[in-house]
């Protein structure tokens, strides 16, 4: 648990990779499969009355990889996932692509800062992004000529935000990352 703290001398970076870096590095295939699987989960036959509550699992996994493997999943992945989303749901092409790009951009900006926080702290940083993404989609839809919007869909963003912590734990387990340190990891 205090492995990192011990090996740090006067706060300088250890020579040998520790903890997270030592874990199996994420591969392109792993990233691709997890994002596609999460996206497919959202396409399951959810009950029609609760469609506005269905969380955006694809985005969740995308943000996870934005944080842990930004060289494998960044703006390009966000754009592609967004296009797939728009095409399958019959929405204006580019609507989700744009909002995902915005979220990814913000996450990449926040990334360095997030490293200093525990899982809960990270969740607090990321929570506003998911409703923001939904709001962006709804507003862009309005701007591009839809006359009416179902504002209940904002709730999906809140559900997605609430799922961040469990999703992180599940993805950590699936991708073989070491368990997270619950205490603040120096800096």
């Amino acid at each position: 648990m205090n492995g990192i703290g011990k090996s740090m001398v006067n706060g300088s970076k250890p020579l040998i990779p520790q903890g997270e870096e030592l874990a199996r590095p994420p591969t392109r295939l792993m990233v691709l499969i997890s994002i596609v699987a999460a996206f497919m989960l959202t396409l399951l036959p959810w009950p029609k009355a609760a469609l506005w509550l269905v969380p955006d699992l694809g985005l969740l996994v995308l943000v996870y990889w934005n944080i842990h493997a930004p060289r494998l999943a960044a703006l390009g992945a966000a754009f592609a996932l967004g296009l797939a989303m728009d095409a399958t749901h019959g929405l204006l092409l580019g609507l989700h692509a744009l909002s995902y790009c915005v979220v990814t951009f913000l996450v990449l900006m926040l990334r360095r800062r997030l490293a200093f926080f525990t899982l809960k702290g990270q969740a607090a940083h990321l929570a506003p992004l998911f409703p923001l993404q939904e709001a962006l989609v709804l507003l862009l839809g309005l701007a591009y000529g839809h006359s009416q919007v179902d504002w209940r869909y904002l709730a999906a963003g809140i559900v997605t935000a609430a799922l961040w912590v469990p999703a992180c734990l599940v993805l950590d387990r699936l991708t073989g990352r070491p368990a997270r340190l619950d205490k603040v990891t120096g800096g």
Partner: protein
Amino acid sequence: MSPATQAPLFVREMGLTTRFGLYLLVCLILMAVDSRYSAMSVVRTGINAVVHPAQQVLVWPFEFLADAGGFFTVHNDLVRERDRLLQERGQLRARLQEYQALKSENDRLHTLAGLPPAPGLHRVQAEIIRADQDPFTRKVIVNRGSLHGVVAGRPVIDELGLIGQVTQVFPASSEVTLLTDHNQSAPVQAKRNGMRILVSGMGSDSLLEVRYLDLHADLKPGDILLTSGLDGIYPAGIPVARVLQIELPRHNPFARAICQPLGGVGQHRHVVILMPEKRA
């Protein structure tokens, strides 16, 4: 460690902000093109052709479970249901004879009046396979597409009444915009006095409205509205809605009528797409 996961020693690529700006620009252009021109429908159909089979595979276990539940139905229930259906079929047959008599009489009157006979309809049975997560329009996806001869623009009904219109056709599925969608409307006629009005969706799942109703129009709660057949899309005489209440004008010179759709809009699993009958 694969080279892709390693940060390069010298950064020789665009900055994050620049790349972000470029992606934003591409998205905005894409949306503009998609909303103005129909050029993107090819892309859409292509992606849908890939995703649709995958979705079918995903849905399959759920359908299997539902079917497995049906396997254990009690024999007694089946017999009772069969009796009920037989009875219903008898009644429908009798009604059908009446209908055929009326139709031939109607055709005769048409020829007497020198009018072309009313076009027949060809019915395509379809099943609702999913509702889409779309905050802007109310629509469902049915499992019949261009392979089955479905064409965009055709009316969709269920056993009770009109439910919507086919708006997009894919190879093996098509998208039906429901009558309750805000931008959807149908020309109707009051059954009682033949008054012609336009009924539209109001963005609620269970209500329709007549938006611009004359203050003195003779429309009462309880009136049944049928399609008038004036637009050439919806054939005449399909039940659409029942008037619930008339709202007197407050801020504008028109009254408004709130109606309840008669068809189970998107509730029933089986629907029928009405196609024009092919003439030899």
